[in-house]
């Protein structure tokens, strides 16, 4: 049997599990040491189940989980040295903040070392002043920090986070995101962070795995996931609003000319020379202009604005040629956009991603 690679912190091999209405199907993942790995997917995808199986709260129906070259598939959770943070923090309600953080430490070493370490961690997360409080008197953000402190107190090699920022208000979320980043960069702990929030994934991840319906659909860097989704389903999920079907007619110097259901062809950076393809264009990559002037954009499509939706600082513009653009309020006002107006949708060939299909 192959012994997995040394540099890998965690490997999941052919994992299957059914539990209630959730399933994990043929999960294969490799996570590097010190990486910030995000599992991104819609609710119900099975992300929590996967995390809980990695932690050992559940055992897989088949497949393996390897951590630092050890097969931990059937190992009890207390032997795995993995920190776990639930979305609702799960702080022990009958313990103070101090006692919560100390819990894992008390099981291992002497009291003096514990106290010192605990004070260090509380300082590092700025929660020393909460030491004698009970969890139910803390705000969401404070509880989350205590949960983090408790988990890192035992010096785990991996920290598993189940939608850690979901229950927080925007400001606290931004703040805690940075704290999580600190945990990774200053302590070197490998982070496996599960979320449905794309901003979180984009901002925190070294790599992302897109998970849907219990399956891993694509693994890559944030850039790869959001700009080069591998199929229509993933593209739709990550916010690619322009998904077109087409046929490659020509290819010059790595730029494919694709015939689509529009009045002109689209140019995409691609190695395809022929065949049916699906074309993805992110809405924020489309720039709308009134008049055609100097533009480095390879693609220029004329059309009329059919519908505009106000989305706070951004505006979603739908055109009659079915293209969707996402523009700032400024741009909207500068060009004087309104429904029925004729505009040019311009976008670069590098913004167009083509996949077989």
């Amino acid at each position, binding site marked *: 049997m192959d012994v997995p690679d040394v540099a890998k912190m965690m490997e999941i091999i052919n994992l299957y599990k059914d539990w209630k209405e959730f399933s994990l199907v043929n999960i294969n993942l490799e996570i590097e040491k010190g990486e910030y790995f995000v599992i991104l997917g819609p609710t119900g995808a099975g992300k929590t189940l996967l995390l809980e199986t990695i932690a050992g709260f559940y055992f897989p129906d088949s497949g393996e989980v390897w951590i630092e070259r050890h097969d931990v598939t059937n190992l009890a959770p207390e032997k795995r040295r993995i920190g776990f943070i639930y979305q609702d923090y799960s702080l022990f309600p009958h313990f103070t903040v101090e006692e919560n953080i100390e*819990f*894992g430490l008390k099981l291992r070493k002497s009291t003096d070392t514990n106290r010192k370490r605990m004070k260090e961690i509380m300082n590092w997360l700025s929660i020393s002043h909460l030491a004698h409080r009970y969890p139910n008197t803390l705000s969401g953000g404070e509880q989350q920090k205590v949960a983090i402190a408790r988990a890192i107190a035992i010096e785990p090699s991996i920290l598993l986070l189940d939608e850690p920022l979901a229950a927080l208000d925007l400001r606290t979320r931004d703040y805690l995101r940075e704290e999580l980043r600190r945990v990774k960069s200053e302590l070197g702990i490998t982070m496996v962070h599960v979320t449905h929030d794309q901003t979180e994934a984009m901002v925190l991840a070294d790599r992302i795995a897109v998970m849907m319906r219990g399956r891993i659909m694509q693994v890559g860097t944030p850039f790869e996931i959001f700009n080069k989704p591998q199929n229509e389903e993933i593209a739709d999920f990550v916010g690619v609003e322009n998904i077109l079907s087409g046929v490659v007619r020509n290819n010059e110097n790595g730029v494919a000319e694709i015939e689509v259901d529009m009045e002109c062809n689209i140019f995409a950076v691609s190695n395809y020379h022929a065949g049916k393809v699906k074309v993805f264009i992110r809405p924020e990559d489309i720039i709308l202009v009134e008049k055609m002037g100097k533009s480095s954009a390879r693609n220029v499509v004329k059309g009329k604005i059919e519908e505009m939706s106000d989305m706070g600082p951004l505006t979603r513009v739908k055109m009659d040629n079915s293209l969707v653009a996402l523009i700032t309020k400024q741009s909207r006002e500068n060009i004087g956009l309104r429904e029925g107006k004729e505009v040019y949708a311009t976008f670069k060939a590098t913004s167009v991603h083509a996949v077989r299909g």
Partner: protein
Amino acid sequence: MPVHEGQIKKVKEKLKREKLFLISLSLGLFLIAFICITLGNMFYKQAEDLPGLIDAAKDPVVLAAIWISISAALVATLIAFLFGVPLAYFLARKDFWGKSIIESIVDVPLVIPHVVAGIALYGVFMHSGVIGAPLEQVGIAITDAFPGIVIAMLFVSFPFLVDAAREGFKEVDPRLENVARSLGASHWRTFIKITFPLAFSSISSGVILCWARAISEFAAVMIIASFPRSAPILIYERFTSYGLGGSPGIAGARPISVLLISICLVIFILLRVIRKRRR
């Protein structure tokens, strides 16, 4: 005068709003009165015969019976605790085919008449019974002995403990246990440090209920072990032979009842206070 009218109007309006609560209170008062009148009357009547009460309190037969009731109930509750709490934990956490059957079986003692329970127990524990016979060989007597009382009490009261403990465990979020284990605590340690303390309120309620039910048991104990006499059985005997007040030198049903209730009330109130303090 207009001030009074205004106030009366306010009261009337308030009563109208609270109509359902008022009806509930009125109906409920009947039940409250039920308890207060019956027990109050007993204490009141006994207060008219204080020397009789004091004699009963000094009577070794009476004291022995009360002690048997309290101690047998304690043993029964202890056994129910040792075997029932693990069962409750299992039922709270695990789902399996036939689970509702098991839970129904646990509740059976609650729905069968107590004298029937006594008959069922007697059939098994009598000298020629399936369990009684081998035990007799080893020199352990069940019928008409202290163990018999404990067994009868155990049978009718353990469901209270199991049900209360199970609900208590159900209210402990399994996620708390998961996190504890991820921090390095074994399942056992997690149970001791996290699960049990968080379920303690419900469990202790169940223990108190179980003990109270055990002390009260009459019919089942009567069938399997009318001797040594537990307090309820002594009270019954005295009632049928000597009436409420008793005869000179022989405590009647009433003084023994007052004694028994007083001791039990004191213990229960103490336990409740201890429970409240712990919160």
